[in-house]
């Protein structure tokens, strides 16, 4: 499919330009810091010589463009520097904590799509009737509170009052799983330990729901709005005149064209989840990027802060490329076009 490949290359090009911009933005934020990063890194007891030495090592005495050049050169070699908090390379720290966050965000994203889209479809099919009103109010309610409020409420209801789910953590301590990918759902299966796998899923459910709630509301609202527009099209009227079942019309004629605009926003919601994961992880003591992120921020650990934000931005760009590719596959106008002008 040359059109799709053309589109992929175009998107990769744009993403690359955006990524350069993101690196400049992150660099600019890091240089906003009042005070001397070297002094902050070494603490109040450091001698002048020590600070001067670290300043040279961090290239702090050179001009900003030169400093940025060093930053980019390091990043492109996969070197994000040493974290002052853990005394390890930032890349190692992120590799350790990112899988836990991604596991949570991926499940939350799946829940968002699996629940949000059907809810929006249902609301649109029964538009201006009671299922629609109910779903719209519920959807608006879910987007009206930050993730940590839902996390606290869900935890209180379904971990304390009704002890259906574990209170915190990723896995019961008694299981010992060798780390291969860092994704515990994968690692437990690789170890052939089905009991541990069930335990991991059990731990995942409540935080994932808390994280997905506002996304569900967004997805449902958007799908409904797009479908209601589609329902006004003449071909729907024709399908109705042919006497097709309303459920068939909803699925095949109203939903499909509405899915494409919804997908773009779903990509954005996924990005929001990467941020909101910070809040949900804090409540459920989830050993993901959040605990690390907040810890390094409180210590003004510049390398680690820059590295974490950069990795999150890259993850987000990748997700958006995937979403755009899905749209290209779903949209026959792009799929079949000779030049891929979209």
């Amino acid at each position, binding site marked *: 499919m040359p059109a799709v490949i053309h589109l992929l290359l175009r998107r990769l090009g744009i993403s690359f330009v955006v990524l350069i911009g993101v690196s400049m933005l992150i660099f600019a934020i890091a240089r906003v810091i009042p005070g001397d990063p070297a002094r902050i890194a070494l603490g109040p007891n450091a001698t002048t010589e020590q600070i001067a030495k670290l300043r040279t090592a961090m290239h702090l005495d050179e001009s900003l463009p030169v400093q940025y050049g060093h930053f980019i050169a390091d990043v492109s070699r996969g070197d994000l520097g040493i974290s002052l908090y853990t005394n390890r390379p930032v890349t190692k720290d992120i590799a350790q904590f990112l899988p836990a966050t991604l596991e949570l965000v991926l499940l939350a994203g799946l829940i968002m799509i699996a629940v949000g889209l059907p809810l929006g479809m249902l609301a649109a099919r029964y538009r201006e009737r009671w299922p629609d009103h109910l779903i719209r109010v519920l959807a608006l309610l879910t987007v009206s509170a930050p993730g940590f409020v839902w996390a*606290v409420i869900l935890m209180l209801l379904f971990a304390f009052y009704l002890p259906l789910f574990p209170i915190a953590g990723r896995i019961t301590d008694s299981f010992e799983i060798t780390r291969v990918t860092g994704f515990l759902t994968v690692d437990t299966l690789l170890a052939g330990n089905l009991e541990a796998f069930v335990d991991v899923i059990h731990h995942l459910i409540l935080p994932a729901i808390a994280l997905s709630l506002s996304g569900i509301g967004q997805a449902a609202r958007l799908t409904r709005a797009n479908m209601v527009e589609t329902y006004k099209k003449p071909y729907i009227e024709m399908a109705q005149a042919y006497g097709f079942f309303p459920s068939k019309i909803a699925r095949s004629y109203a939903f499909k064209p509405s899915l494409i605009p919804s997908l773009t926003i779903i990509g954005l919601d996924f990005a929001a989840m990467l941020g909101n994961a910070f809040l949900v992880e804090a409540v459920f003591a989830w050993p993901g990027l959040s605990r690390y992120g907040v810890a390094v921020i409180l210590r003004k650990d510049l390398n680690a*802060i820059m590295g974490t934000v950069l990795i999150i931005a890259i993850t987000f760009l990748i997700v958006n490329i995937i979403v755009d590719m899905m749209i290209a596959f779903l949209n026959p106008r792009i799929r079949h076009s000779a030049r891929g002008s979209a």
Partner: protein
Amino acid sequence: MIRALRILAANPMSLIGLLLVSIIILAATFAPLLAPYPTHNGAIVDFAYANKAPNARNWMGTDLVGRDIFSRILYAFRISLTLGVVVLAIAAPVGTAIGLLAGYVGGWVGAVLMRIVDVFLSIPPLVLAIAMMGVLEPTLTNAMLAVTVMWWPWYARLVYSIARAEREEGYVLAAEVMGAGTPHIAFREILPNCLPAIVTKMTLDMGFVIIIASSLSFLGLGVQPPTPDLGSMVAEGARYLPDSWWLTVFPGLAILVAVFGFNLLGDGLREILEVDE
């Protein structure tokens, strides 16, 4: 105006939204008069009443040092609303101006501006604010700054897309033919047609700014104690679940009610002003 009132009356949910928003604004404005314990706004301790469940004296209970939670929530609304108003008062005009410029003038200026907007939008909003608070001191002013920096691009993109569409409309061409200058066309001709969308977005965004700001303070990166803030109140109480549930549940519900009010009102406005989603 009459049409607007009729739509509002026919839509009970937006009326509820208007009611909630009015109550929150009044509660925040008159917090010193309404709060049963106005001094509990600061660093005061009253250990005789520490960590009490809701009762006749303290309707929403007291926190770990004996401060009345209801009073603190009223004061926290002041912080949230002030932050929201300041952020939007800066972000919306800045974003609008940039969006108009990029959308109407277009060309390479527009392309460069919108790529800059793309860069800001490609970092999850909360993460960008967290990163900025990571290098700044956690104060109310800095929290406002961080949230404003991440907020203007959304207005730039919204106005850009409208301005791009309006640029081809007859009334813009007419103004151009009559020799109107760029500022006149951008601000006097195109801007009025962007206003309904901007006003709707600002109403909905009040809710989102409250969410982001409370999220920052929940992580310990926003307004610092003893200043009451809904996010930090939830964070403080979360360690004492489930026994001292009132420490987290009431501030959490306060966020929910306030944001829900702005969202209901914003949805109603969207219908009245006929703005597309």
